[in-house]
C-alpha cells in the first residue's frame, strides 16, 4: 500500500493531464469513426484483421496520435508513455483493432529504442508505428517455452566474435505471432555455450526477407493462424543488427516486461470491458445473470484498480519487477472469468451459434483459454510470486 502513495501528488497531476488527452482523443475518434471502423463483414479473416490494424495505425499516424508518448529521437512527440496506453485502450475498446495484435507495438518498439543503434531505431520505429511494417518476436522454441533461458537457436560469428561483420543463424522458433505478415523479427539466439543459459543469449533485429528464413503458420484452437513456426537455415545477419551487447540478450528480453505488464494490460482491460458491456446488453434481466455479471465485473474492476496503480508507479519512476506477476495472474483470471460468464449467460452461443456474432464469441472464448498460458504460464507466475515476493526460497 505504501508504494501506491509514493508520488501521489505527481500521479494526480498526471491523471488530470491524461483526462484532458482522453477527452481530446475521444472527440477526435468520434468524429472519425466511419473512417476507422472495420470495413470487413464480421467475423472477418486474420488477413482482414491485420490489414485493418495497419490501416488504423496509418490513419492515427497521419493525424499525429500514434506518435504520442514515444521519444522524439524515434519520430515520436514525447510525453508520458501513458498517452500511448490511453490511445491503445481507446481503439481496443472501440473494436478498431484486436488488442492482442496491436499490443505487439509495446513489446517490440521499446526494445529497438533501448537497445538498437540510434540511427536504426530512428529509421524503423516510425515504420512500425505508421503501419508501414509489421514485426514479430522470435523468443519461444519447441524446447524453450516457460524455460526461455534454455533456447538453442544458434548465432555464430563469421570470424572473431568481436569484429565479425556477419552472424549466421540456424534453428527454429515457435508461437511467433504474425510471423507470416512481418517484415522484421526481434530474435533471441544462443551465442554462448549450450549450457550458458541466460548468460549466453544475444538478440538480433532480423529482416524476414533474408534468404534462409521460412515461416509455417500454425492453426490455433479457434481456427485462426495467428502464430507460426519460423525456421532459420544459414541466415546471415549483419553485426550492426545486434540489439544490446553480445551475450546481453537476456536483458533485452527482460526489458519488455514493464511495457507488456502495463500498457498492454490496460489495452486488454479496455477490450474486456467492451466485451462485458456487450454481454450486459444481451443478458436476460434475471438474478442468475446478475450474479454471474457481478462476479465477472469485480474480477475486471479489481484488475483495473491494480493495473492503474502499477502504471502510476512506472510513471513515477519505479522499476517494475516481479510484483507484476500479480497483474499477470489477475488479467488471466479476469479474462477467463469474463468469457466463462459469456458461456454461462448465453447458452448455446459458443457451442452452436453460426451467426457472425456467434462466430466472434466462439473465437474469442477459445482464445481466452490461452490467457493462463502465453506471456508466462499461470504456474510460472505463481512460482515467481512464491520465490520473489513471498520469499519462500526455491522450489524443490
Amino acid at each position, binding site marked *: 500500500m505504501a508504494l501506491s502513495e509514493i508520488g501521489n501528488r505527481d500521479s494526480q497531476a498526471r491523471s488530470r493531464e491524461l483526462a484532458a488527452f482522453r477527452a481530446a482523443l475521444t472527440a477526435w475518434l468520434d468524429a472519425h469513426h466511419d473512417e476507422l471502423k472495420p470495413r470487413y463483414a464480421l467475423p472477418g479473416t486474420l488477413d482482414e484483421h491485420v490489414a485493418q490494424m495497419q490501416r488504423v495505425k496509418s490513419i492515427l499516424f497521419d493525424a499525429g496520435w500514434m506518435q504520442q508518448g514515444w521519444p522524439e529521437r524515434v519520430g515520436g512527440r514525447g510525453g508520458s508513455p501513458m498517452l500511448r496506453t490511453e490511445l491503445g485502450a481507446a481503439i481496443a475498446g472501440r473494436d478498431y483493432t484486436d488488442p492482442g495484435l496491436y499490443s505487439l507495438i509495446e513489446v517490440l518498439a521499446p526494445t529497438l529504442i533501448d537497445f538498437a543503434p540510434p540511427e536504426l531505431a530512428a529509421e524503423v520505429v516510425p515504420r512500425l508505428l505508421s503501419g508501414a511494417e509489421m514485426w514479430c518476436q522470435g523468443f519461444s522454441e519447441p524446447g524453450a517455452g516457460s524455460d526461455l533461458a534454455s533456447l538453442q537457436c544458434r548465432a555464430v560469428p563469421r570470424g572473431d566474435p568481436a569484429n565479425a561483420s556477419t552472424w549466421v543463424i540456424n534453428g527454429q522458433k515457435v508461437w511467433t505471432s504474425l510471423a507470416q505478415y512481418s517484415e522484421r523479427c526481434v530474435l533471441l539466439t544462443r551465442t554462448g555455450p549450450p549450457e550458458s543459459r541466460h548468460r549466453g543469449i544475444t538478440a538480433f533485429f532480423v529482416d524476414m526477407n533474408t534468404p534462409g528464413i521460412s515461416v509455417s503458420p500454425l492453426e490455433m484452437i479457434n481456427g485462426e493462424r495467428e502464430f507460426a513456426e519460423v525456421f532459420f537455415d544459414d541466415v546471415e545477419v549483419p553485426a550492426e543488427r545486434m540489439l544490446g551487447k553480445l551475450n546481453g540478450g537476456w536483458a533485452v528480453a527482460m526489458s519488455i516486461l514493464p511495457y507488456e505488464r502495463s500498457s498492454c494490460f490496460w489495452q486488454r482491460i479496455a477490450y474486456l470491458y467492451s466485451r462485458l458491456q456487450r454481454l*450486459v446488453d444481451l443478458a436476460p434481466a434475471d438474478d442468475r445473470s446478475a450474479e*454471474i455479471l*457481478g462476479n465477472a465485473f469485480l474480477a475486471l*474492476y479489481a484488475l*483495473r484498480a491494480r493495473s492503474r496503480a502499477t502504471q*502510476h508507479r512506472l510513471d513515477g519512476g519505479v522499476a517494475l519487477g516481479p510484483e507484476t506477476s*500479480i497483474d499477470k*495472474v489477475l488479467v488471466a483470471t479476469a479474462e477467463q472469468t469474463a468469457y466463462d460468464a459469456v458461456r454461462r449467460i448465453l447458452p448455446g452461443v459458443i457451442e452452436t451459434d453460426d451467426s457472425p456474432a456467434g462466430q466472434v464469441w466462439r473465437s474469442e472464448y477459445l482464445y481466452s483459454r490461452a490467457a493462463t498460458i502465453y506471456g508466462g504460464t499461470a504456474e510460472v507466475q505463481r512460482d515467481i510470486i512464491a520465490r520473489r515476493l*513471498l520469499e519462500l*526460497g526455491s522450489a524443490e
Partner: protein
Amino acid sequence: MIDASERALLEETVRKAVANASATPGGNTPVDTVLATLGWLDLLEAAPREALDIVFGALGHANATATILDDVVASALGTPPRSDLAVLLPRFGAWDPPGRIERGRLRAHGLASGRVATARELLLVCGDATQVCVEIVPIADAEIGPVQGVDPDAGFRAVRVERGAAVARPVDAGAWQAAVAHGRRAVAHQIAGSCRAMLALARSHALERLQFGRPIARFQAVRHRLADALVAVEALESALAAAGDEPNPDTAALAKACAGRSARTVSAHCQQVLAGIGFTTEHAFARFLRRTLLLEGIFGCADDLLLSIGRRLLSERSVPALIEL
C-alpha cells in the same frame, strides 16, 4: 493530505500502539483508549482516508477489538462522533437503515459494537431509500443482548429499540449511502489487515514446518496456495486504494465485495497450509478466521453485494469504468 514519510511514520506508530494494546487483554477496550490518545478523532476529521486505511488496517493486522467504526458512521452522517455515542449498525449481511418509523413508533434492530455497553446515547438511522432521518436516543431505551456467535471477542451486541418517535433529524438520503460507503471501506481495510496477518502466519509456518525432510515451502502445491493468497490480498488493497482515490458508494461497495472474496480465498489457503496447528486454538490463525467471518457481514456480504451490483449493471445496461488512469 499527508506525504509519504508522514504516512509511514503514522502507520508505524498506530500499528505498534494497537499491537501493544491488544496484546494486554483485560481493561475496558484499551485499544479505543490508545487510539483516542493518539488523536483518532482528529485524524478522522483531518485525514479520513488515512484514518480508514492506517487505523482499520492496524486493527485487522493485530486482530484488535475497537469500537471506532461507530465514529466513522456518525461522522459520515454529520453527527460529531464522541466516545459516549454508540451507533446502531444494520443486522448481519444487511445495509439498509436499521430503523423504521411507522405510525409514530420507532422500531429498530441491528448490531452494535461493544461501545453500546458503556455509551450514554445511541445514534440510529431510520428510513428507506427515499427518506432518511437520524435519531439519538438514550441508551436506556435500547434492549441490548450479547452476541457470542463465531467471534465473541469482537464484542458485538444485538440491539433492539422500540419507542415513540421523537424529534428525528431528517438527513439527505445520500448521507446514509455515504455512511455505508465509509463503513464498508473501514471494514474492508480491517479485513485486508487480517488477510496480511493470516498470510504472514502461513508463510512462517511453511518455512519452518519440516515434512519429508524439508520445509513444506519447497512443495509447489503449498507455494501456489500462498501465491494465490497474495494475489487476493493485493487485489483487495488495489480496490481499496482506488476507493480512496475515487471515493463514492460504487467503489466502496466493490472494495467491500472484494474484501469478502479475498478473505475467503486467503483464509482457505492459509488454513490448508497451516493444516493441523491452524485447526487449534493454540495458533493465532483461528482468531483471524473467526473475525473475518464476522466482518464479512458488516454492511453486506460479498455474494449479496455482487448480486446487487449485477442487478444494477442489468437495469442500466451499462458497465461503468469507475476509475481512469
